[in-house]
């Protein structure tokens, strides 16, 4: 039987929902907007356009970070309460065991490094969304976004490592002054806040490492976008948290 171009019955198979909409994951939407059926949010899940899955993970990341922010808010409010919790002694003097702490100057440098790291990861993130590159990858012609984003991502990770190392040095400098975790309430909070933040940063470094691996191994550009985008959001949030926490430690003692 000769090959034919058409079949008698053409049944479109039910596609498995990938949640990525089957369109190239760029910002541009197909029409100028406003037409019938143009409201992508109104479509069933899995058919809401190229950025549906990205939006889902961004939404989850935003909520996760909101919860994380409450964690730091609790620590900071404890900081203020503890700062104000002195007592009146027998001779009617106000006694407080809160002593100021000289912040190691290297923290200023660390802050600058973390800001640079944030800039670097933002550069990496943007490489994943340049339309001409995304289209090239989506058609399977090459991996320009991977090529361009990798150096920025590595730079961001290295700067993050430098920050953590810098925090370590700051702790060593305080040790040298004889200021340890349990020395006084102020040092409690200094180590606790910097330590909790450092744990978050180490998780972030692991996320960056994961994103680097993901850039190489994930088959679809959509997934690579998600890996880098969510890592970047997390990293930015940690940068912003640090700026506030550092401001607290430096100026509100």
């Amino acid at each position, binding site marked *: 039987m000769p090959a034919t171009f058409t079949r008698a019955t053409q049944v479109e198979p039910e596609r498995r929902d990938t949640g990525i909409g089957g369109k190239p994951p760029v910002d541009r939407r197909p029409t100028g907007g406003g037409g019938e059926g143009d409201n992508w949010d*109104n479509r069933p899940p*899995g058919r809401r356009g190229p950025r549906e899955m990205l939006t*889902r993970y961004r939404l*989850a990341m935003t*909520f996760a970070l909101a919860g994380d*922010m*409450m964690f730091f808010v609790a620590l900071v409010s404890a900081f203020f309460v*503890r700062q104000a*919790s002195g007592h009146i002694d027998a001779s009617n003097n106000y006694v407080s065991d809160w002593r100021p702490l000289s912040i190691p100057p290297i923290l200023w440098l660390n802050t600058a490094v973390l800001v640079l790291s944030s800039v670097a990861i933002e550069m990496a993130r943007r490489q994943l969304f340049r339309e001409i590159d995304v289209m090239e990858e989506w058609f399977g012609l090459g991996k320009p976004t991977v090529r361009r984003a990798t150096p920025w991502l590595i730079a961001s990770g290295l700067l993050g490592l430098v920050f953590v190392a810098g925090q370590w040095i700051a702790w060593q400098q305080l040790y040298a002054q004889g200021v340890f975790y349990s020395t006084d*309430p102020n040092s409690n909070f200094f180590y606790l806040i910097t330590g909790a933040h450092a744990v978050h940063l180490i998780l972030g470094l692991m996320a960056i490492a994961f994103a680097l691996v993901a850039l190489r191994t994930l088959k679809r550009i959509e997934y690579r976008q998600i890996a880098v985008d969510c890592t970047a959001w997390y990293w930015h949030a940690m940068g912003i948290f640090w700026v506030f926490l550092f401001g607290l430690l430096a100026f509100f003692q």
Partner: protein
Amino acid sequence: MNPDPSAPATARIARTRLFTTDHRVIGIQYLLLSLAAVAIGTVLSLLMRIHLVWPNLAIPFLGQIKPEDYLALVTMHGTLMVFFVLTTAPLSGFANLVLPAQIGSPRMALPTANALSFWLTAFALLVLLAALIVPGGAPISGWTAYPPLSAIAAAGPGQALGMDLWLASLAIFCVASWLGAVNILATVLGERCQGMTLTRMPLTVWSWLVSSLLVLICFSVLLAAALLLFSDRHLGTSFFLPMGDLVAGHVYSRGDGSPLLWLHLFWFFGHPEVYIAILPGMGIASSIVANFSRRPVLGYPMMITTTVLIGLLGLVVWGHHMFVSGMNPYAGTAFALTTMAIAVPSTIKVLSWLGTLCGGGLRLATPMLFAMGFVSLFIAGGLTGPLLAQPALDAYLHNTYFVVAHFHLIMAMAGVFSIFAGIYYWFPLMSGRLMSEPLGKLHFWCTLLGAYATFFPMHFAGLAGEPRHYSQLAGTTAGLQQLLPLQRGITHAAIFLAAAQFLFLANIVWSVKHGKRSSCNPWQSTTMEWARPIEPESKLVQSSAVEAASYGHRQKACRGPYEYGIRSDRSDFIMQCDSGAKPE
């Protein structure tokens, strides 16, 4: 997703039943976890009740209960019930079971995080239970773990390793709840089907949304507080340790820490936690009351508003747990005002339930009985809320049985009734069968009677000044001696209440195998979890996979969630996804 039929049976069962990312199976897993926790917690409470009235009785296997054992029982009972029953079952359990279907989504937004959340919760339960068997036993500082007793290992037998396990369990539970809440929020906000606008969501979905927001906000704070307490215990800090703290003959004087700080952090978590436990119950009650009285929910937009309002106000009332803690009295006044303000949305909710009931064609099936029981207990327990919100009254009542009566009626019993209502209502979605109605009704009446008989007399004990947290009341003063018959009655009622739950267990065991096969949409409900065909439990995973592949895409919400009793001709309800029926 698709179970491979050629794989070995055990591996397949492990993948499809145990380590699955299917939200409905996870929901059932959560409910079973809660069942285990509630069974243990109930046994512990019975031991407490028996010891209170027969202090010299030697319990088989345990011997006589010492005062510190009694406090350990208090701690474990409270922790198990609050975290692993009242948080886990209504929020995580039911939301996983029906939330995606109710909003027309084939799956949760983050199925893997969801499964991880369940396994962390299970691990947290094991860590907590381990505290019962370690040397020294369980912690004795109550589920609120007030420092300095909770901060110093020498404070009591359970305060060393047991307290550490308690803290670890709570920290793991915080992370697990946080993951689960992120998943629910992302699902509700991002995965709704076409037409499912926010103002068409069933009230259960609204309540899970608000509860998840509260989880996100307040469990993070509990985690921070647990970290600080851990640091006080092991790293030589003094966040919560006051100056010159004398514990067990030894002065601990590290710094000028503030035990009040723990109270603030803990109750900032602890009060929203109450609403996390009860909001889903309110949603379930609204849905079930509307369904079984065949009337739309009275004031549906108002019910959304009050749900959100209760969530918001719930965040600013924590100080009413601290009226007698030495907090600034002006702060007490502010917290008294916010606490009384929260009675307003709660009352609106009660009026809506009663208004929906009024004039409806009542169908008194078991889920409806339990929903009405919920309303009854919510009113009975809620009325004492504004009393306790007065700092002056609370000063007298705070450490008495009055408070025990209050929160056991409004949180524990109302919460459990809503869980029962949900299980009787959604059982067909879990097993493909209906639960036995005669057994269910018997269970309801016994439980209702037992609940009131157990907890209502506690008001009188509290008004007479009987303190809570005391392991032994006999022989102290003449006044308390007179209350002993009352307490004996309470213990008998508690044993009756616990025994009545065997009816529930028997009903489940019997109904899973022999219950009446459920037809499609057995309760003639409007919400979309009933839109798909009912499958037996063994087909659950497979059908989920099929649903995810095809069925989910076709879901569409065409109308509001509670269109009951609108038309009298064909049927008196229109399902949300019913596109054929024209609205009136």
